[in-house]
């Protein structure tokens, strides 16, 4: 296997992009990444696109062909593959891209992630999100995605794993970090009380505990590490990409206070990268709901069980803190165009690893970790980037 490097990244602004179509945002992110990598585009020999539900959001299946066509890659007949894994679609597309280069099957791959969510009304988009849970035995029974996470939160509070304030602090952390991210959907700070008092979505979670509905796209360019310096002065090494599965339905787990798939994917990634959790300088975690951020920080081993909440509450996870989490603003504040999310995490970590994160730049970056989740922890990818 070959080592793989990220040599270019790009993303659109995340948010309500009323003037832009799915094609527009997909193309824009790809162009930015290719430009960032200093390529003409003809070098690309493979494409992977993370997208969750274009079939329902814009009534368009066959996204691979669409993106290949509009990005000009179809004229070179570049193979384009769409990857779907609920909320983990982007992370999984990234993993497919890395595997394609590592295996020697491809030499220059672009991984994109895109979702256009605002072309349907809110109830429809919620229904689409809910379909990443077990449609037959959760969603149809009245369990929304928010309520499944709320049930986790309720039980966590009941068992003393986190307080309501600590859970709310995940949102406060993401919002504070997003202030310095020009691509973020919400560039404003919030307070614990505002999160707790936000209108109820699924108690105990409120509106400010939930990631927004967003449009957006992100892309990264991958090539063998040995070739990376030919294209850029600042390649970033992909130290690990791992993935783990769990039951589709949350109620079939042994425990709902932790996502086993995150734990396993993290173990595998740390082993592959030859590091441990304490070597992680910065992490982008899947805070689609605030409680997910608590679980992620613990399951990744960044904090001990029962201690993540306190860390968020005390600001340890802020961009300037000891263990920065979601310097981009995370899903909560940067936005959550589902298929783009996992790729956007790589974009942010690449900036951090190569020192181009501007006002969000952390000190002495060495390893950056991204955790991307599908459903209620049914599929998780953990990727580790290394500054070189």
């Amino acid at each position, binding site marked *: 296997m070959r080592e793989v490097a990220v040599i270019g990244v790009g993303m659109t602004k995340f948010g309500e992009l009323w003037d832009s179509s799915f094609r527009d945002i997909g193309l824009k992110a790809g162009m930015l990444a290719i430009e960032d990598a200093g390529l003409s585009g003809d070098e690309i020999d493979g494409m992977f696109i993370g997208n969750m539900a274009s079939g329902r959001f814009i009534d368009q299946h066959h996204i691979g062909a669409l993106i290949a066509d509009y990005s000009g890659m179809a004229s070179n007949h570049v193979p384009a593959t769409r990857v779907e894994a609920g909320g983990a679609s982007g992370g999984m597309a990234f993993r497919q891209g890395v595997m394609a280069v590592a295996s020697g099957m491809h030499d220059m791959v672009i991984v994109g992630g895109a979702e256009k969510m605002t072309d349907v009304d809110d109830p429809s988009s919620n229904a689409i999100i809910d379909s990443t849970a077990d449609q*037959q035995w959760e969603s149809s029974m009245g369990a929304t995605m928010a309520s499944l996470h709320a049930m986790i939160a309720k039980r966590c509070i009941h068992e003393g794993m986190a307080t309501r304030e600590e859970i709310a602090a995940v949102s406060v952390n993401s919002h504070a970090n997003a202030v310095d991210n020009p691509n973020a959907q919400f560039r404003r700070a919030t307070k614990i009380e505002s999160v707790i008092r936000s209108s109820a979505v699924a108690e105990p979670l409120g509106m400010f505990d939930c990631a927004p509905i967003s449009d957006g796209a992100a892309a990264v360019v991958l090539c063998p590490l040995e070739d990376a310096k030919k294209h850029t002065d600042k390649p970033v090494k992909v130290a690990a990409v791992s993935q783990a599965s769990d039951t589709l339905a949350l109620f079939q787990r042994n425990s709902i206070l932790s996502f086993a798939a995150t734990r396993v994917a993290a173990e595998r990634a740390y082993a592959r990268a030859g590091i441990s959790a304490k070597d992680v300088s910065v992490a982008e975690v899947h805070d689609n709901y605030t409680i997910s951020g608590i679980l992620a920080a613990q399951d990744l081993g960044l904090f001990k069980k029962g201690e993540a909440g306190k860390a968020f509450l005390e600001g340890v996870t802020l961009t300037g803190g000891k263990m920065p989490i979601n310097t981009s603003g995370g899903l909560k504040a940067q936005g959550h165009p589902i298929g783009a999310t996992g790729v956007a995490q790589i974009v942010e970590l690449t900036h951090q690893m190569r020192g181009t994160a501007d006002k969000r730049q952390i000190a002495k970056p060495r390893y950056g970790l991204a955790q991307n989740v599908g459903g209620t922890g049914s599929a998780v990818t953990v990727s580790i980037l290394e500054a070189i």
Partner: protein
Amino acid sequence: MASVAREWREIPGRYNTVGTKCGACGKIYFPARSLCPKCRRASVGKMERYDISEEGEVYTFSVVHDAPDANMRMKPYAVGMVKTTDGVLLTGQIVDIDPHRIEIGMPVRTVLRKIYEDGESGVIHYGFKFVPKW
């Protein structure tokens, strides 16, 4: 119109929480599975019908305000995970109680209710929900 057949074939689980028990290791599953994820090949042909207990207690729950259209007239409604006396977790709505009076550990039983209707002219889908025990 949503699929009639897709719902129809799930009626045993929907109406009566019929699951399966692995003849090899004894683990109970809901919904029914044709393969035990633990025993895999050793469980082939040994998955037996198992009627999950109609009683249990609330393991966790949430009061849903941002509700799908199907539940508009019941907002806010409670959805919970219930641990049955067989030790199986089920997800379903908890009804006939003020959602804010539900507590973790509260004893409940299953009842048959409408789960959703396929519009004004489509099929009505029934399934289990939970109510406080008598």
